[in-house]
């Protein structure tokens, strides 16, 4: 029962946060300089006032701001994010069209960074006094410190241009028209470079955090107790040390997961990955208000959802949370 009421409470709060974000985004974007009608008119080659006014009227831009806001918010409530006049498509359709590619990229990066990062961190902690442990930390620091776009370009240079092992850009081979398994393999091959590049930073963060957290947990009194029981070192590391060390990692993983929609703009641009990131970039360049607002909405939604998930998982992982509030 407390669990249900906890979830209910969180849902209500999440809805309120989302509403606040929608309103805030709306005002932010209207405060930004630049007039979408002017941009569109400019591209159409027309400069006369009549044309501009027509455009404004068509898109509702001539209405007072509160009216525009009300129309927008009530639209969002019914999952109507408006129409992208630049792309000549409903915003929702555009986003849903691009979402899978982004989720595939960021999800893969998430799994890679979490799995490799935590494993490397555990290894580094168990060999804290050994040169191999230090080596892991040096490599992690390197990944942590190097700018993402530079890593991306170097990866393309080495693995695509020099070695020719992996495709340099895109989602699949253009014109190949693979079917079934062949298509999956083709996408996977295209996925390797961008996903690894995107995952490197967080992988380094996980490695460092896991190591520090493991070493800290290893100093705790209950580890002495576990040894006094005669437990084998492997069991002690897994059941007592890692289980306690994993708590801050959950928090970090929640943060990373929340960025899955909005966090890949750079990578998608460098690798020409057809995802939300690139869509957002284009929308920004074209003052495509409705599309931008729609993307912002989905970014925020994902952050909120993963925050909630993190809290839920945390409560499962740490029994103390339920009582001690």
């Amino acid at each position: 029962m407390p669990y249900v009421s906890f979830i209910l409470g969180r849902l209500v709060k999440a809805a309120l946060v989302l509403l606040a974000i929608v309103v805030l985004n709306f005002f932010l974007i209207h405060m930004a300089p630049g007039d979408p009608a002017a941009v569109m008119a400019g591209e159409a080659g027309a400069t006369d006032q009549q044309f501009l006014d027509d455009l404004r009227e068509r898109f509702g831009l001539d209405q007072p701001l509160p009216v525009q806001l009300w129309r927008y918010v009530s639209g969002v409530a019914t999952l109507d994010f408006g129409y992208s006049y630049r792309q000549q498509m409903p915003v929702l359709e555009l986003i849903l069209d691009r979402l899978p590619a982004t989720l595939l990229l960021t999800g893969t990066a998430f799994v890679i960074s979490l799995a490799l990062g935590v494993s490397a961190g555990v290894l580094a902690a168990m060999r804290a006094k050994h040169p191999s442990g230090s080596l892991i930390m040096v490599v992690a620091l390197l990944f942590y410190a190097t700018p993402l776009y530079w890593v991306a370009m170097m990866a393309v240079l080495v693995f695509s241009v020099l070695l020719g092992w992996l495709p340099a850009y895109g989602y699949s081979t253009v014109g190949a028209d693979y079917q079934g398994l062949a298509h999956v393999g083709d996408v996977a091959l295209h996925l390797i470079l961008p996903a690894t590049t995107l995952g490197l930073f967080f992988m380094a963060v996980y490695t460092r955090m896991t190591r520090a957290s493991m070493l800290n947990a290893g100093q705790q009194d209950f580890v002495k107790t576990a040894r006094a029981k005669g437990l084998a070192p492997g069991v002690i590391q897994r059941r007592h040390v890692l289980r306690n060390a994993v708590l801050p990692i959950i928090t970090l993983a929640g943060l990373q997961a929340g960025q899955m929609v909005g966090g890949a703009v750079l990578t998608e641009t460098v690798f020409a990955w057809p995802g939300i990131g690139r869509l957002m970039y284009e929308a920004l360049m074209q003052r495509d208000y409705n599309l931008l607002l729609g993307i912002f909405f989905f970014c925020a939604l994902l952050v909120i959802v993963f925050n909630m998930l993190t809290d839920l998982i945390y409560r499962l992982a740490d029994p103390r949370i339920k009582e001690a509030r």
Partner: protein
Amino acid sequence: MSNPLLRIERLALALPEGADRLYAAENLNYELNRGEILCVVGESGSGKSMTANAVMGQLPPGVRAAEGRVLFDGIDLLRLSEPEHRKLRGRRIGMIFQEPMTALNPLMRIGEQIAEVFEAHGLLTTRQRQARVIELIDEVGLPDPRSIARAYPFELSGGQRQRVMIAMALALEPELLIADEPTTALDVTTQAQILRLIKALQARRGMAVMFITHDFGVVAEIADRVCVMRHGRIVEMGTAEALLAAPQEAYTRALIDAIPGDALPPEREAREEVLLSVEGLSKVYRSGGGWFKPKREVAALNDISLTLGRGETLGIVGESGSGKSTLGRCIVGLERPDAGVMQFAGAPLENRSAALRRRIQMVFQDPYASLNPRIRIGMAIAQGPIANGVAKAEALAQARTLLATVGLDEAVAERYPHEFSGGQRQRIGIARALALAPELIVADEAVSALDVSIQAQVLELFVRLKRELNLSLLFITHDLRVAAQICDRLIVMRKGLIVEQGSAQRIFTAPREAYTKELLAAIPGRDRGVSHLATVTAG
């Protein structure tokens, strides 16, 4: 007995290079027989715990056995490989630790943690383990074993957790139990219960127990034989009765004498001038609370009234959760009470001015944590006066004088906190409080973290300063023996309420309330004549 269970021969434990001495322990020789409780007594740094670590094969990194043998039932433990040693741990040698609050894995259920002992040694089926876990929890006297087995450590009190630790250590009926200060972190009444439990289980199972402690009161309660250690060497050994009645070595004598409580302060006239008066003080801690959750409320103080005369020492005695620290913090101004009136020398303490604040200072429990490690102690002492407008050079000069006042060299003003021992740091803490020339000092468990001999010195310092500077003292402690040594009057608190108050003499010799009697009865060593209080209360 000719065949001891544990025989330590010429054991030397070498410390890593750069330590303050070469050996943690050297030339150790002692035996422990089956069915016997041996208390290893010493102050911090005596090497008493390190010896236990050697027996468990758990020496910290850098420390190694340089010489000697540790024979357990004929097996030299120092020559065992780690896997061989591991087979003995938990199975034939069990261990319990000082800190029950942190000795259990916070994320695992109690039952799982006890069952792990069987799993570690590949014993019993899962079902049998569960049944045995319930039996063990029952055996150590915990109520409702089934729900305890399902509980997590945070749901249990300190005493309950220590019982769980004992159940765990005894799960496989080890021949040797090592108990490293197992009652030091517990309240006095809980300590008495745990000591009784260990003794009963030991008698029932005929185990040998190596009981490590710093407290001669505890020794008197539980020991068959005693081994006194200092600086890594054995000072004196003997049966408990002989050693307590007639210690041969000066150091042993000093340790036994240092136990506070050998003399109650004489009854004194009630003070004429009231310095502090507190009336109807209440404080409720509220936690949690949300849209769907009720708030949790704990009444830390419930309608507390007291007065403190100028030059008087008032002791606030109570166990954890009694509200004694909250009371101290409200008086100093670190907490805001919900209700009640406080007056200090006629002025109200609500919204006190900086000038009034200066006149009430606090000395904290943990001398390690209460000094900023990056600030030289001269400056740490001078900061208060500087904040109150004294020129920096003058404040620093005054700090040096104060260091001399609390018995430290003036030259140490340039040093950092980590260069001092616990006792020295507490002297620094007192100097810091004195720097503002207060009229009242609130000392919250100010000697609880210190070794007994150091404790005695710091208490003497308090008494001297009080006399010389005409200070008033509010002395908060859980330790009745300490309170007996220094306080004129006592207030016994429990769960935010005052249980009883009166002169120290009266409370110790003729307690009126059941709870006060219970507290006095729980003082370790009172039946065996270590604490003079015992004879007073008995008479």
